[in-house]
């Protein structure tokens, strides 16, 4: 790297994967946004973008900002990936397009809507249970309990061993960061977890008629073989659980800490879906993803050389005052459409309609039964190099008078 290339770029010494940063990311997010449209992160020798305009533009320019060199810190052109790369997340067109078409065919909005009734039954039962308890941990007993039941049910994964899903997702999202202590801790005992996941990706272990089996059915239409179908099932299992759990946990945290906002959702439970959109903007479960430059590219007067890692701060873009009015205000009536919490462009979260359905159904069911949610102890963060969510969230709920 020549000195002249970087001379115009602001330089930051922040470590976005340090415990300090992850514990309270919003002040450093502001610092990065204010430093400039693109910032050099000295510690890792990478670039960062934290403003909505540049993050959105990079996500929508996969020809310049590629994914096949990995969407984490590791550069797959120089380092061997820890697992066979994802055919979706860690791929570029044209290969990516076949995989994407296969999975969008399976996860069409129509198909996702067909899951609503089954989800509603589970949500009503779960809400009944926690309302009876009055006090509960909104992570373990609520935000985690729901997706870890309805999601593998929908995919068609057998009951036994489902606890591996959370452990796997946690490790996969940690692996996008550096091999720090947070990553090492999550990688413990992963051999068995990965073995179980690999088995669950095989057709014979997936229930007929489930989303997993559907992937195998759709795959040949896009010239994908069974090995590729298995990798697509792996994508569902990697990306579909921890993200949703954190989104739901963050939702309850936002509602407990903004009682007026919960009152608005309780008054009109049909607002649950839009309220969740605001949660994803305000406390984005997926905070960051990397891209890699395919050529020298100029960003607002700074030239990034070819083959450079660029860290895109989705969560910082979602609170950029250049794009949002009063971005630090949690407002369930805001039109949050346009946030990049699910990414944007060809790699936008393919399960986003499924995530919205889960949230709509669960938060809606809670809103019909519960008039107030309050913290009942200190929430505890679950640190992850990529995800933002809670390990524990003790709450007390007050049922609405019948």
């Amino acid at each position: 790297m020549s000195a002249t290339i970087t001379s115009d770029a602001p330089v930051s010494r922040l470590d976005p994967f340090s415990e300090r940063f992850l514990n309270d990311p919003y002040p450093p997010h502001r610092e990065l946004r204010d430093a400039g449209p693109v910032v050099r992160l000295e510690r890792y020798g990478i670039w960062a973008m934290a403003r909505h305009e540049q993050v959105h533009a990079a996500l929508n320019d996969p020809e310049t900002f590629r994914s096949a060199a990995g969407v984490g810190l590791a550069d797959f052109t120089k380092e061997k990936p820890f697992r066979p790369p994802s055919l979706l997340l860690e791929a570029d067109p044209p290969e990516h397009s076949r995989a994407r078409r296969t999975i969008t065919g399976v996860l069409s909005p129509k198909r996702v809507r067909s899951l609503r009734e089954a989800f509603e039954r589970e949500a009503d039962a779960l809400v009944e249970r926690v309302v009876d308890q009055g006090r509960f941990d909104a992570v373990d007993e609520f935000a985690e309990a729901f997706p870890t039941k309805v999601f593998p049910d929908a995919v068609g994964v057998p009951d036994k061993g489902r606890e591996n899903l959370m452990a796997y997702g946690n490790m996969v999202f940690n692996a996008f960061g550096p091999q720090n202590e947070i990553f090492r801790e999550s990688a413990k005992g992963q051999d068995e977890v990965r073995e179980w996941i690999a088995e669950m990706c095989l057709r014979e272990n997936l229930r007929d008629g489930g989303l997993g089996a559907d992937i195998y059915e759709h795959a040949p239409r896009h010239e994908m073989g069974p090995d590729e179908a298995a990798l697509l099932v792996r994508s569902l299992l990697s990306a579909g659980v921890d993200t949703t759990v954190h989104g739901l946990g963050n939702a309850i945290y936002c509602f407990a800490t903004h009682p007026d906002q919960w009152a608005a959702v309780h008054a009109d439970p049909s607002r649950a879906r839009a309220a969740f959109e605001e949660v994803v903007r305000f406390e984005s479960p997926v905070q960051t993803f990397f891209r890699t430059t395919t050529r020298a590219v100029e960003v607002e007067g700074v030239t990034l050389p070819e083959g450079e890692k660029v860290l895109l701060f989705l969560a910082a873009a979602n609170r950029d005052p250049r794009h949002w009015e009063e971005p630090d205000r949690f407002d369930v009536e805001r039109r949050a459409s346009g946030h990049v919490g699910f990414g944007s462009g060809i790699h936008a979260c393919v399960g986003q309609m499924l995530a919205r359905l889960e949230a709509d159904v669960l938060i809606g069911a809670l809103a019909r039964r519960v008039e107030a949610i309050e913290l009942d102890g200190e929430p505890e963060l679950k640190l992850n190099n990529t995800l933002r969510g809670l390990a524990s969230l003790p709450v007390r709920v007050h049922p609405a008078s019948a």
Partner: protein
Amino acid sequence: MPAVTYVSADGAREQVELAVGTTLKDGALENGIDGIVAECGGNAMCATCHVYVDGAWIERLPERSEVEDELLESTASERTAASRLSCQIKVSDELEGLVVQLPEEQE
């Protein structure tokens, strides 16, 4: 700037001038026109920015991509030969005078 008219499901018409390159979805949202949800933010993922393109205009638009065509199978209001996703159509000078009808339901 080309003028585009949005007609709501109950027949109310609103004409707005849109910059070339703006999508019909953004044109509606930026002008406070109800009836477009665009839950996914314009990524062709949700089918909640469905519109019906009036008469001869449908022939004059760029063709639907395979992804758009597939998503139109998931619209909440009935799909017709006039159905398009407004996030996939960019305003151009050739579209001066375009009229689009908003559906009854998006979700």
